[in-house]
Structures are given as C-alpha cells and as structure tokens.
C-alpha cells in the first residue's frame, strides 16, 4: 500500500476509459484493456484492504488543497464504511469483462469510467469532490443505457438521468449550504465532510437542506416513492449497467446517507428517521409485491433489488449500531448476490434471447453449475443463513425492532416477500419441463465458472465467517454513534419494553 493508492484506484480506470474512448481500439483490445485495468484495480484494492487497520477513522488519507479560499481540497480517505463499497466495486466489476465479451469499445470504456467515478465518490472526503464524482458516475450510465440499452431505452435513459440529476442538484444546494454555515459558525471556509459534524444546524433551512440531501440519496437508492425510474432503467439498461447500478451505485446512495445526513443533520435525522424508515419499509413491501407481478425476469430482479435497498436504507434510519452495521454488511452482500443475479440474468438473456419468465424452464437440468450458482446467489438474496444475505438482514431487523416495533415487524416481512417471487421465478426458469428456448441452453464455460466461483464462495464465506469483515466495519459504525452522544440520547427510548404497542413515535 503506497501513499496515493486511492488516487490510483480512482483515476486509473477513468483515464484508461477516456483513452479507450479517444483511441481507435478494437473491441478485443478494449475488452482486454478493461479487464487488465479492472484487475489491477482489484489488486490495488486488495492491497488496500489488507493494509486497512480498522481503526474506525479515515485511513490512506490524501489531502491536497484545491480552492483554498473556500477550503475545498482534493481529499480522499477510506474508513470501514466506504472501504466495503469500494471493495464491492473492485471485486465485482472485473466479472463483467469476462461475462460480456463481444460488446463495443464504448461499453468497456464507460464501465471503466463508472468504476473510477464510483470509487471516487466513496473515497472523497470533501463534499465538493464527492459531488463531482457523484455526478460523474451518472454519465457513463447515461451513455451505456442510451447506446446499448433495450428497445425502449430512450425514455428510460431520460428518466433516470433527469431524475437523478434533479436530486443531486438539490444536494448541491445543500452542500453549499453546509459549507456556508460552517463559514458562518467557525469563520473559516471548509467543505470537509468530517468537519461538518461540528455544525449546529437548526431551523427551517436546515430541514430543507436535510431534505436536499435526503432526496438526492433517496433517488439514488432508490427509496420509495422515488423509485419509479428504476424498473425501466434496470430493465432497459444493458446488463453491465444494470449490474453497476444495482450492485454498487445504489449503495453509494446509502453511503451518502451515512456520511452526510446522519452525522451532520443529527437533529433533523432523529426527527424524520421514523418517516424515512417507513419509506424504507413501504418501499421494501411495495417493490416486493410488484416483483411478483413481473413477467420479465430482469424487471423482477430490478424490483427485487429495490425491495432490498429499502431494507438496507431502513438499517441506516434505525439509528443503532446493529442496524447500521447490518446495513453496511448487507450492502456488500446485496452487491454480490444481486449483482451476480443480474449478471446471470444477462447470461440467460444472451443465451436464450428472451427475458420473459414464461418462455423459460428446466434450465437446471441443462446447466447444473449455472443453476447451482444461481441458486446460491438467490438464496443469499433471500437472506438464508449461511449466506451473506442473512447477517445483514438479521441485524437490520434486530435493530429495527429496537427502533420501532411496528417497523421492525414490517421489516421482517422481507423474509417472506423476498422468498415468494424468487422461488416463483426460480421454479419457472430452472425447474419444470425444459422449454423450447432453453433446449439448447449452454452450461457456463469453464472460464465463466471459474470467474464466478470466487464471488459465489465469497457469498458463502461472508455468511459463515463474517467476523473478519465486520471487525473492519464496526469501529467506524461505532464511531458514528460515539460522536454525537447527545443525539443517541435523544433518540426515542426503545419501546420494546412496552411490548412495542406504540406505532408512531413523537
């Protein structure tokens, strides 16, 4: 691990992507460049991960002043929260180059750019820098969706782009508001994230700024009712983009909530947490219900992803360490499981030329390894113990019970809702009689099988032996609750003692 490892992780893919775009490289070269770059990023990230001490504070800090008059700097750093999102991206993205081998140059180049931008967004410690990466990571998605998406891609592209940009611009106002408030209170300009927690924000404007942040993140997550861009975008996007969106990008929304909203707007957050938690729970149920009605497996996975994101977001809103840690763990678990499921969906689509569930059937008999992998990812997605999905989900439900009984109980229904549509889909696609379209379904190739193996193993290892991962997360999450002791005290006292008959808290 060297000094500027984070910068390299961020800019190596971006620069490589831009160079690819500018060069007349062929598809093959593009693919192998992408692969090489993402693998080297992976190596660097692993190096970073190994060297990560888990102190809870920012590590690998880089800080270069940029706009000194406003206290804006090029600041990077990772802690236990951001590390795992970074790692999820680094680990998962190389898969795409293996799975999709015949795409155009721009496809791979955009993937590289989005990878770098996402890494930048999670590593940035300066709000302005964060915002820049936050916006930049949308652009490759915009191009991928528009260029390589399905037949109805244009409305979907516009919807996701405008929706998310609208949200993020509101966030920009909120970011500036924070910086200015910092200037007003401490007579010094700064946009550094860690300094914002010292702010003492009250009043109407603070609430507005709070929602400025919240809406931006809610759209990205997507939190009910800001999810409506998701089904179209996830369905129409090329699989790699859907994969990126669901596996990593959505998580950066949650990350934002943890990074900005929780420490900075402690009072507002405590006030509105119940509302947001309901949004999370309702979103989970709403999308879960909607998933059962889907005929298109990609759209079904899209709703499933949104449903899970509702739970993950809920974990953040519950304001206790178990739920928060559970959320972060679930972020990684969901990234691996749903991400892999989307990739599998892509494989299914490529090999059968259909996305309709009814057209498929009996694939388990044709491709047992594929079915096995799929089943493991699916089981992780429904939160089966022994897979990565359980730990996080359990901790979130546990924390939610403490936060508010009604929400906890509703959150628990994810156990049932998730399994309904997943099993239904699995039954129709993998079991039953082999359909004509699946007749010639090819098993995963050896390379594919080997490439997915680490991720599948990761799913299982993370379920069976999560301690090493958690021990890097918990110091940071503990810090989240250690800092504003006053806020934790203000959190409505646990009403578990009263058998949780209170549904609404004041």
């Amino acid at each position, binding site marked *: 691990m060297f000094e500027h490892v984070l910068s390299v992780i961020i800019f190596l893919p971006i620069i490589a992507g831009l160079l690819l775009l500018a060069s007349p490289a062929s598809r093959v070269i593009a693919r192998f460049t992408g692969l090489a770059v993402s693998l080297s990023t992976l190596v660097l990230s692993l190096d970073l991960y190994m060297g990560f001490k888990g102190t809870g504070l920012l590590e690998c800090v880089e800080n270069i002043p*940029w706009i000194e008059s*406003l206290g804006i700097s090029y600041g990077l750093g990772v802690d236990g929260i951001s590390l795992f999102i970074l790692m999820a991206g680094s680990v998962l993205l190389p898969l795409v180059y293996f799975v999709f081998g015949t795409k155009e140059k721009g496809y791979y180049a955009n993937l590289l750019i989005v990878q770098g931008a996402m890494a930048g967004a999670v590593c940035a410690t300066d709000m*302005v820098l964060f915002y820049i990466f936050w916006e930049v990571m949308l652009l490759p998605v915009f191009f991928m969706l528009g260029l390589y998406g399905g037949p109805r891609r*244009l409305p979907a592209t516009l919807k996701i782009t405008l929706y998310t940009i609208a949200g993020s611009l*509101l966030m920009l*106002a909120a970011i*500036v508001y924070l910086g*200015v408030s910092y200037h007003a209170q401490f007579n010094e300009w700064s946009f550094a994230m860690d300094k914002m927690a010292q702010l003492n924000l009250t009043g109407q404007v603070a609430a507005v700024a709070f929602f400025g942040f919240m809406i931006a993140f809610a759209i990205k997550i997507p939190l009910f009712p800001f999810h409506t861009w998701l089904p179209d975008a996830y369905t129409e996007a090329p699989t790699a983009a859907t994969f990126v969106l669901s596996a990593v990008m959505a998580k950066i929304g949650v990350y934002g909530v943890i990074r900005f909203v929780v420490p900075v707007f402690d009072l507002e957050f405590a006030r509105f947490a119940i509302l947001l938690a309901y949004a999370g729970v309702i979103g989970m149920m709403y999308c879960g219900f909607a998933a059962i009605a889907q005929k298109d497996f990609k759209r079904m996975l899209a709703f499933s992803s949104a449903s899970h994101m509702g739970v993950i977001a809920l974990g953040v809103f519950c304001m206790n360490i178990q739920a928060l840690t559970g959320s972060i763990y679930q972020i990684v678990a969901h990234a691996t499981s749903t991400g892999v499921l989307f990739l599998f969906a892509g494989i299914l689509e490529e090999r059968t030329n259909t996305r309709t569930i009814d057209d498929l059937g009996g694939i388990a008999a044709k491709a047992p390894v594929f079915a096995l992998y799929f089943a493991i990812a699916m089981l992780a997605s429904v939160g089966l113990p022994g897979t990565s999905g359980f730990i996080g989900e359990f901790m979130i439900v546990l924390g939610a019970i403490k936060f508010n009984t009604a929400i906890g109980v509703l959150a628990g229904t994810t156990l049932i809702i998730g399994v309904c549509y997943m099993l239904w889909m699995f039954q129709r696609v993998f079991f039953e009689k082999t359909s004509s379209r699946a007749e010639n379904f090819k098993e995963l190739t050896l390379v594919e099988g080997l490439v997915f193996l680490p991720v599948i193993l990761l799913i299982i290892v993370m379920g069976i032996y999560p301690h090493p991962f958690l021990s890097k997360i918990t110091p940071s999450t503990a810090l989240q609750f250690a800092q504003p002791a006053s806020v934790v005290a203000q959190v409505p006292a646990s009403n578990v003692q009263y058998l949780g008959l209170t549904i609404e808290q004041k």
Partner: protein
Amino acid sequence: MTNDLMLLMPLIIVGAGAILLMIASTYDKLTHELAAYGSAGIFAVAFLVQLSFCIAGKVAPFSEAFNGILVASNFSKAAGLIILACGFFTSLSSQAYFKRNNFCSSEYYSLTAFAASGMLLLTMAQELISVFIALEIMSLAIYILVGYDRKNVISTEAVLKYLMLGAFAGAFFTMGSAFVYGAAGSTKFVKIGQYLATNGMLHSPAMIGGAFFIMVAFLFKAAAFPFHAWVVDVYDGASVPVTGYMATGLKTAIFAVFANFLVIDGALQQKWITFLFYISVLTMFIGNLIAIGQQSLKRMLAASGIVHSGYLLIALVAVGTKDFTGSVIAFYLAAYAAGTLGIFTALSYLGGKGEARKTFDDFKGLAKARPYSAAAISVFLLSMAGIPPTAGFMGKFYIITSAINAGEVTLAVLGIVSSIISMWYYLRLIIAMYFHEAEEQFDEPAESCWAPACTFVLVLCVFAISLYPIAV
C-alpha cells in the same frame, strides 16, 4: 500618462488592428482567410499582453486612466481576457464557417475587432456616456455582423429586430443617464458614488429612476426578462460564429459593466436587490420555458443564453460591494464562454452549407460519423448544463455559494431548480447525437483544420477552467 497608455494597450492593439484590417481590406490581395488569421493574430497578441498584465501584476488594481473615465481593475482585466479569447476563437471559427458560406469579405474581421474594442472599453468605462458610446460601438459592430449576409432575408430581419430594439433600449439609457446627471451633477461613477455616499439613495428619486433606466438597457443587452424576446430571433438569424460571439463576448462585456455600475455604491446595489431577484428568477424560468420547445439548435442556445443571464443576475444580486473582485462573475462568464463558444465553433464547421443543419434532428447520429466532434459538443453541453467536472459546474457552484453566503438561499434554490429544468434540452442534443442512427454522413470536404483545433482547445479550457481556484 504612459502608465495609462500601458493599461489601454490591449484596447489599443485591438482598435488599431481593427482599423488596419479595415484599411487593408480595400486591397484585393487580402483574402478573407488572411484577414481571419490577421484578426486572430491581433486578438492573440492583445490577449497575451493582457495576460502579461494580469500575471505580472505591475499595474495596481483600480488604476485610473483618462480623468477617471476608464479604470482597469482586476475584474475588467479578467473580463478583457475573456473577450479577447472570444474574439480569437470567433475569428478562427468564422474562417471555417466561410468555407461553406460565401458572403464573407475582409471587413468582417475588422468589425469583429471593432466590436471587441467596444467590449473592452465597456469593461473599463467608468462614466455613463462613455459606457453608452462603448455600448454603441460594440452594438453597431455586432448589428453589422448580424446582418452581414445581405442576400439573406433572415439575416436582415435579425438585424432589423436587433437594431430597432437595441436603439430603443439605448434611448432609455440616455434618458437614465440624463436623470443621473441631473441628480448627481456628473456622469462619472466616482462622482455618483460620492453623491450617493453623502445623500443616500432613497432621498434621490432621480437617481433611482436614472439607475433604473440605465439598468433597463443593460438588462436588454443581457437578454433578461422582460427584455429577452429579441434574443432568440436575432441569434437564429445571425450566422453561427457571430451568434457565438454575441453570446459570449457581448455578454461578458455587458455583465462586466453591469457589475461595475452596481458596485458604485452599496446603497445602489441594495436598492436593486429585490428587483434583480425577481428579474433573475423570471429570466431563468422564462428562458427555460422558451428553450424547451425549440427545435432549432441556435434558438435553443439563445434561450439557454437567457437562462445563463439569469444565473449571472444571481451573482449580481449576491455580489458584495466591499472589496468587489467580480471573480465569481468572471469565472462564470469564462466557463460559459468556453462552453458556448465551443458549441458555436463546432457548429460553424458542422453546420453545413448555408447552415443546412439547424435542428436537433439534423445532428442525429453525429457520434458515429464524427465521434470527436460529438464528444466535444457533449462536453460543452454538459458544461452549460453544469455537470461536473466541467467549468460550468464550478461556475454554478461559485454562484450558488456566493448567493447562499449572501443569504439569498431562496434564489440559490430557484437557480438550482432552473438548472434542473434546463437539463433536458441540453441532454436532448446529446441524445440525438449519440442514441439515434445517422441519417447522413456529415462528410463535407475542404474543411478548415482551425475550427476543430479550436474546439479541442476549448474542450481543454472547459476542464482547465474548472480547476482554476478563485475566491468568492
């Protein structure tokens, strides 16, 4: 006096160059391409001189020249830099443009330089009637450039509209100046400031009325609501490089002088904050609404220019009169100029013969045929839309920061909302270029290499400017 002359050096270079070009153009040997290089050279030299002043910092800020009528502040120098750069790129893009359009003559370039000298004067003028004359030099030159294509009725219509309304607004300016003169006894900014400092704004209705009429003229030139209606038609009617020049250089000059005028005295600016607040909000939103429905690219860009004027008005509202540096305004202008000029430069070589490609649909599939140009245009559009990491984003960021810092949170939020609204029509062109199949091949021969080179340089500028730190 030598010092004073040094201050005016860029202006002198441009003015003298304009006259030289004018004279030289009577010789038939001077092809208009040579004239283009000539004017580009003049702008380049002036730019470098100006830059050397900026960097060397030998001349103290607020140095007065000629009896206090002209002042060279850091702000005016920065604005001058932008104007000169605009002139440079306009010259070169015109050169490419006239490969496809044959109504050029060498005077065109001298008029470009004349307009630039008017703009430079405008940034420095600190006296109302000088402002008026400078304004008219700039405007007259631009009128002529707008109507340069005499065979084209569209172009003539544009110049009619522009000239008529411009002169109309100019009349208001003179009336306003008369009242200010009546109240303060002088038209020099310094004297007006002294008068305001002793008497206060509120006790002088003549000052209020005069300043109001003067601002009307500025708002007209800046295309603020409700004086915006001309801008769409005139941009549409003018040839592409001229439109780019109008949208950037002219706007820079106008906002420079507007800011200079507003910061005469704190009281003056305070008086108009509410007024400018509503004007800027309306300007942003009306501009957006006009832009949404446009099919023609130039008209859309014109309407978006209205919106950008709205943003700049936010900056004017938020600007502090104490220690006025104008850095936010200058930065935004530079960012906006880079993006807009970039698009117009690209359009000037992509527009086809007689500007055949006008609408969004005409650019469908450009990315396949001309990937680099399409990428450059996308960068410019993103910059105008304010998406990081472009200069446009940083400009918007500074404006919002200064607005919130000045306590104008509502205005900042409305600016953001308008920015959201504007997103669609910028993306629309990108979508047309990238996500649609090409209907034609975009392969015209005999293209100048200068304009594409300029486009490339401007792309670099868009990114480079965003990295340049300023103080709010």
